[in-house]
């Protein structure tokens, strides 16, 4: 049962940050609530105060300017799966959003909330790493950008400071020759493994980014797998995929659990990387 808590209604990001600063671990930011309220109902976490940021202005739009797509952290997954801008400019993220959890979660869950909760089996973080996204963290005294690959520290842990709020996700508009794909596989409610691949295809492959998520405690970029594909022709890269997949599997820090054994997850990473390459390069 949900215990009693006080709902704070800040009028700005700065006010929300001050509340976080004042109440410390007794308060938590409340956006879509799809993860937080479940954990509270289960009694796994208890907060005296929830800081409702749902009504804050200027953090729930998708815009594109100066070569950057900006997604407000309060955009729900449903808003993103129906965004024409995302569909045109970032089809891989658009497709990912169409497949996040289920329709009820997508309706109220926000992208920012998903990233901040850092549930290990979440999808978006993995692709955002491959897309070289920057996450904007804001507090009353200023803001900073955190590279998506530096944002996830561990299971349920991010590099956000206690008084910071995630306000925006910035993704460079992909060049015309840029390709990307995110694939996931699982047989339970949440995925067992997620793999994201991005590269430029201009004769050969360049600027390759590989990221793996869901298998381990947090999504991570795999530069060793990228190095095996970078600078190769499409055919050479296709031949290197087995090795790159094995490297990415080991780097995923896969954990044996109900979603599959470590070996199984590492194997699936390789399979998904191969399929992601085929999907992106075709």
């Amino acid at each position, binding site marked *: 049962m949900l215990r009693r808590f006080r709902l704070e209604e800040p009028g700005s990001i700065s006010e929300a940050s001050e509340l976080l600063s004042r109440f410390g671990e007794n308060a*938590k930011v409340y956006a879509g609530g799809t993860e937080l309220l479940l*954990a509270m109902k*289960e*009694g*796994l*976490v*208890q907060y005296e105060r929830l800081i409702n940021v749902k009504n804050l202005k200027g953090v729930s739009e998708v815009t594109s300017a100066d070569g950057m797509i900006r997604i407000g952290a309060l955009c729900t997954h449903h808003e993103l799966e129906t965004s024409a801008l995302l569909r045109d400019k970032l089809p891989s993220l658009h497709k990912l959003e169409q497949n996040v959890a289920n329709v009820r979660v997508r309706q109220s869950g926000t992208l920012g909330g998903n990233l901040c909760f*850092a549930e*290990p089996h979440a999808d978006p973080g993995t692709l955002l790493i491959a897309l070289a996204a920057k996450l904007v963290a804001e507090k009353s005294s200023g803001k900073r950008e955190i590279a998506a690959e530096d944002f996830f520290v*561990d*299971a*349920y*842990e991010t590099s956000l400071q206690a008084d910071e709020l995630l306000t925006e996700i910035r993704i460079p508009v992909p060049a015309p020759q840029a390709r990307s794909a995110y694939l996931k596989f699982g047989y339970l409610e949440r995925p067992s493994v997620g793999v994201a691949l991005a590269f430029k295809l201009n004769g050969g492959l360049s600027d390759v980014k590989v990221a793996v998520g869901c298998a381990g*405690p947090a999504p991570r970029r795999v530069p060793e797998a990228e190095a095996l594909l970078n600078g190769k022709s499409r055919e050479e890269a296709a031949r290197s995929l087995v090795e790159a997949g094995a490297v990415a599997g080991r780097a995923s820090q896969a*954990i*044996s*659990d*109900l*979603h599959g054994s470590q070996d199984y997850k590492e194997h699936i990473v390789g399979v998904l990387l191969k399929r992601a390459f085929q999907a992106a390069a075709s």
Partner: protein
Amino acid sequence: MQFQKEVEILAPREKVWKFIWDVDRFIACVPGCKDAKTLEEGKKYSATMVEKVGPFKVEFPTNIEVLEREELSHIKAQASGADNKIGSRMKVDLDVHLREQNGKTVLAFVASVDILGKLAALGHGIIKRKADQVLDEFAQAVKKRMEEDA
């Protein structure tokens, strides 16, 4: 969940053995362990284990019972506790072995850890990883403390 750890300590076996029974100093090596009390010298102890995974915190008031003791070489102990706030229980069966090897003392332990209740919602893998981290930190802290004293 089964864990096996081994750590080589640059100190004589007698000293390591003595250290294990110095409750205050020993408990300081267990991450998240506080308020250690001796209930019955050499047999029963109590302590509170506090652990954290992201926003999830558990606090287990824990009873520790020494089941077997073989001077300078082996201790078998059992620890159990419950966090009623979260509705979870913990049970640890611990086998500790000491042996001499090339002038060093090898501290080897096998731990069987069971976590039951709502905490399991976090996922077996996450809990296993956390327990593994705690045991690693513990082994390294014992080594550090003993070698600093040497």
